[in-house]
């Protein structure tokens, strides 16, 4: 439980903004606008991370999601010019909505039904240094695997989009 009024107000403001932005992702008619709202959602989620006293993760979120992933998505939209740019739904819209709503209901039920073991912990002090410790000591193997994964993903992405004849792709 966080009993700091400022933080609670911040959480609700951020949560509502994020929720609205996320809804807009589903609602807007243009794909590019959806990407923009998604980026705003990412920024809002970063704010929620800060509320949860995870400053490093929050900043990484802004850097990676809002900065890189959103940009990648705009790239993907722009690189597929002849494709449909409407943010339209398939025939699965209604089943998907029902399924998502059911899932939400179930999860909310579980959340309020579970007896969580809440600690009265204070907010973490600065987390960057301790996160670094964690990465390089107990989690060093996943860390290295993650870096290999990133390399693989990079190579894979390049291979997937590489043109057969090297004509000097224009940026």
């Amino acid at each position, binding site marked *: 439980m966080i009993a700091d009024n400022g933080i609670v107000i911040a959480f609700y403001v951020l949560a509502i903004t994020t929720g609205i932005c996320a809804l807009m992702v589903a609602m807007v008619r243009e794909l590019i606008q959806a990407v923009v709202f998604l980026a705003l959602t990412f920024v809002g989620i970063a704010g929620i991370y800060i509320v949860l006293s995870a400053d490093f993760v929050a900043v990484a979120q802004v850097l990676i999601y809002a900065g890189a992933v959103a940009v990648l998505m705009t790239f993907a939209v722009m*690189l597929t*010019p*002849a494709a449909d740019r409407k943010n339209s739904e398939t025939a699965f819209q209604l089943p998907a909505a029902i399924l998502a709503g059911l899932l939400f209901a179930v999860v909310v039920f579980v959340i309020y039904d579970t007896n969580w073991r809440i600690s009265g912990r204070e907010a973490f002090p600065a987390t960057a240094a301790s996160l670094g410790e964690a990465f390089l000591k107990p989690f060093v193997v996943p860390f290295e695997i993650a870096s290999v994964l990133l390399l693989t993903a990079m190579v894979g992405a390049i291979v997937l989009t590489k*043109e*057969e*004849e090297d*004509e000097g*792709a*224009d*940026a």
Partner: protein
Amino acid sequence: MPIKSEPVEVNIGPQHPSTHGVFRMVAKIDGERIVDVKMIVGYLHRSMEKLAEERTFTQNIPFTDRMDYLAAMSGNLGYCLSVEKLAGVEVPERAQYLRVIFAELQRVASHCMATGAFINDCGAWQTPVMYAFRDREKVLDLFEMTCGARLTTNYMRIGGVAFDIPDEFLPALDRLINDDLPFRFEEYDQLLVGNEIIMMRARDVGMVSPEMAINASLSGPLLRSAGIAWDIRKADPYCVYDRMQFDIPVGYNGDAYDRMCIRIEEMKQSLRIIRQAVHDLPGGPHKTDVPLAIRPPAGEAYSRVESPKGELGFYVVSDGGPAPYRWHVRAPSLINLSVLREMTIGKSIADAIVTLGSIDINVGELDR
């Protein structure tokens, strides 16, 4: 398999920061690359050739100012030469020297403008234009001193020049060509010719091969950049150019960078010519007395001068009346544009802008 993309049509002009007037280029662009260029001109068309048929030969001189308004003296000179050729008018020595002096000053002014605007098209933020304007202003001051106008000079007359130079002209000219401008041109050499960014932007951009240049009737710096030493002042000397010592700067590659260098070098050569002309300037009348409503004999004449933009030719047909029966201008700005399409296709937008800047068109002359 390349990514399929749909070309976009972009209007570069007529209202665009770098089209040098109301010139419109409809570029079809695929990404940053130009697939097709269509040029649309005529926004400044004043039908001068038709208007001239209703005015006397002398009344037509101001039209030549308004054609290439950046090189009014050259236009005046070319037109007067053609009428003189048609009517067989002798021009006094002094007038011939004065014509050379003013035509060369005009070349300096026009090339200043062209170079500055070209670097501006390369993306330098107004600084080169301001520098070039500063030098051009000094030349225009001399024009103002002599004929009262800075831009549309209307100075040459059939049979000479309108006014003799005032007393303070020669000292001012001496200061300009011996103190001010040589220093400025050194500065241009240091700032522009050796500039790596300009090299990167302008080398291998807007290429013209010698064959293409001759086939497309190019002239002026565009032709010389392709490696062809051709200058009307040498090839078909008019006025007293045959008495002057000067060199024709010629490029190797035919790219925009060569053209810029050629323009800077031509300005230096112009100063050289002016020095010789001032040194040899004879006394005597500045004008042959020619009736204001001159009636050249029926016939036709084609005469050409080397204007800063290229070969500026005037084809005049007379039916013996006081007005030309037909007056045609061979406008270098128009004809030099014939290669624009070949030069820009396959390059990027930025290259197209640089190319257009290096051709140095003047829409007043292009549309007439």
